[in-house]
């Protein structure tokens, strides 16, 4: 592949991530700073430890893992379906993961995570079953839309049948997406599955690059298409399912980030993967930082923030596409 003779996205994004991570553990809703860790006064040092290591750090890491999962899976799905509209939300994986988590809500944290991943994997199985192993892109997209609508309807039903308005309220707020006050317990739960998902997704790089000229050419180049689809779908189910389970439903990252970075990687679908992972992590962490910086009243939910920014951005992209020759 020809190298783009300008700044490469991967180092830039990595640098941005480092800056954002440092900012995220340095600033929060109080004035505790990393320097306080070394304070002479032991109480200040102890407080700083609690705040930075037990509160800000897990939150930061979870934002990175979630954002990375969303960006990466968005890029993979767009490359697989050869459609810039694809993202884990579109294929119904996020919706079923949310449903799984909501149903498991009252059985405690571990069940919520298990529910989320089960939902995600169920979505994967249903997708493969509905669309068939040898099905084309259109079938896959339609299956995803059907699955998504179904899951959203069932979630609405679950809210409707909630044992009390309080329970419905809790579920609704959780669904809006947040990484606030998440701890190392949440990380322990989600990280192995997320990393597994990343492994599966990154294995699709070569196949996605080959798909740039269509499925027939990709097949003739030796790519096993059903296996590629399986990797993409199960990888997405694992990392998005786990992320949704601990952070709720956060959208638009998987849609927006690959869009932003595609031209920068020379439109190479394979190369887009790592860039999108880094970009998604950076975007979500930046959004979370913004929320904490602005928070004067009740905290804005992360999913709401990404939707508020993501939807207009997407609309703008659509308008731009219309004007292009």
């Amino acid at each position, binding site marked *: 592949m020809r190298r783009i003779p300008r700044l490469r996205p991967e180092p830039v994004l990595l640098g941005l991530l480092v800056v954002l991570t440092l900012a995220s553990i340095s600033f929060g809703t109080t004035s*505790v700073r990393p320097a306080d860790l070394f304070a002479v006064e032991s*109480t200040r040092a102890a407080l700083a430890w609690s705040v930075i290591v037990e*509160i800000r750090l897990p939150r930061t890491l979870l934002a990175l893992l979630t954002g990375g999962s969303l960006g990466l899976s968005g890029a993979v799905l767009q490359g697989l379906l050869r459609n810039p509209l694809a993202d884990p939300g579109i294929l119904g994986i996020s919706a079923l993961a949310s449903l799984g988590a909501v149903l498991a809500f009252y059985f405690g944290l571990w069940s919520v995570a298990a529910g989320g991943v089960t939902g995600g994997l169920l979505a994967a199985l249903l997708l493969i079953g509905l669309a068939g192993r040898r099905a084309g892109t259109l079938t896959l997209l339609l299956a995803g839309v059907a699955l998504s609508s179904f899951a959203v309807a069932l979630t609405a039903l679950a809210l409707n049948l909630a044992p009390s308005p*309080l329970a419905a309220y809790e579920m609704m707020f959780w669904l809006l997406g947040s990484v606030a*006050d998440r701890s190392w*317990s949440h990380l322990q739960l989600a990280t192995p599955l997320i990393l597994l998902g990343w492994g599966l997704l990154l294995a699709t790089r070569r196949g996605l690059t080959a798909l740039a000229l269509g499925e027939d050419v990709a097949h003739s180049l030796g790519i096993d298409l059903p296996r590629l689809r399986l990797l993409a779908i199960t990888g997405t189910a694992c990392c998005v399912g786990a992320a949704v389970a601990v952070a709720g439903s956060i959208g638009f990252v998987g849609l927006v980030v690959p869009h932003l970075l595609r031209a920068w990687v020379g439109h190479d679908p394979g190369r887009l993967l790592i860039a999108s992972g880094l970009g998604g992590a950076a975007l979500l962490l930046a959004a979370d930082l913004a929320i904490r910086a602005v928070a004067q009243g009740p905290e804005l939910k992360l999913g709401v923030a990404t939707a508020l920014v993501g939807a207009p951005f997407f609309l703008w992209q659509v308008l731009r596409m219309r004007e292009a020759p």
Partner: protein
Amino acid sequence: MIRSPLLLRLVLGLILIAGPAAATEAPRRIVSANLCADRLVLALADPGRVVAVSPFAADPLVSTVAEAARGVPVTQGGVEQILAFAPDLVVLGAFNNPATGMLLERLGIRVHRLGTASSLEAVRGEIRALAAALGVPERGEAMIAAMAAGFDHLPRLDHPVAAAIYQAGGWSAGRGTLADDLFTRIGLTNITAASGRNGFAALPLETLVAAAPGLIVVESMGEEAPSQAGELLRHPVLAARQVRTITVPMRLWACPDPALVAAAALIAAAAP
């Protein structure tokens, strides 16, 4: 900011692996991060011991302890902010982020969770439990006794009255809800419960009218009471029968605390 030796010991304990601190002494730095918790905590605990409350505590629209909340620092409810108050007890409620309670406990801070009560018995249980956690069980009993006396002094009904809570959209409270228990205590027949509905259920207008209601109870957010009741009365079916309605401010029965007595009094007084 943190000077007390007790506090020093407590905060240092955070960096050791510690379970929740043994509750042998009454907490002295209480943070309440929930409206219902605020109302009870400010009513039960010594003023000096409450170091932070939620932003709602000072809002007279929803709080019954707005006066007491004046001057008390406010916290939005995130663990980072709560930690800054160096609490030894944090009272959370049903509407808090579940992760908050988990993280606080992980850090070795005692957490008391106030539940939602679906009966008067449960309300008593919540008050007792919170009073115990605050180290003032006798005040909890006193509050409960006062509530009982308040209920005893409600006007007696000399004939059966069928009533229902009825909101725009048909929402009502059936068997097994706090409202239902309140109706029973007052001596009203809950139409929604009688029709076999449990929990928060929708009550069809037909069923309501067929039961010949003597009183319809409506919730309102604020003092602009007429609007909700007005909406309902406008329905020809209800207007024709000239059914009595009473609007009860949300504030009075949002929480498991003594304000329920005032709600009951309003309703009992309105019964024909």
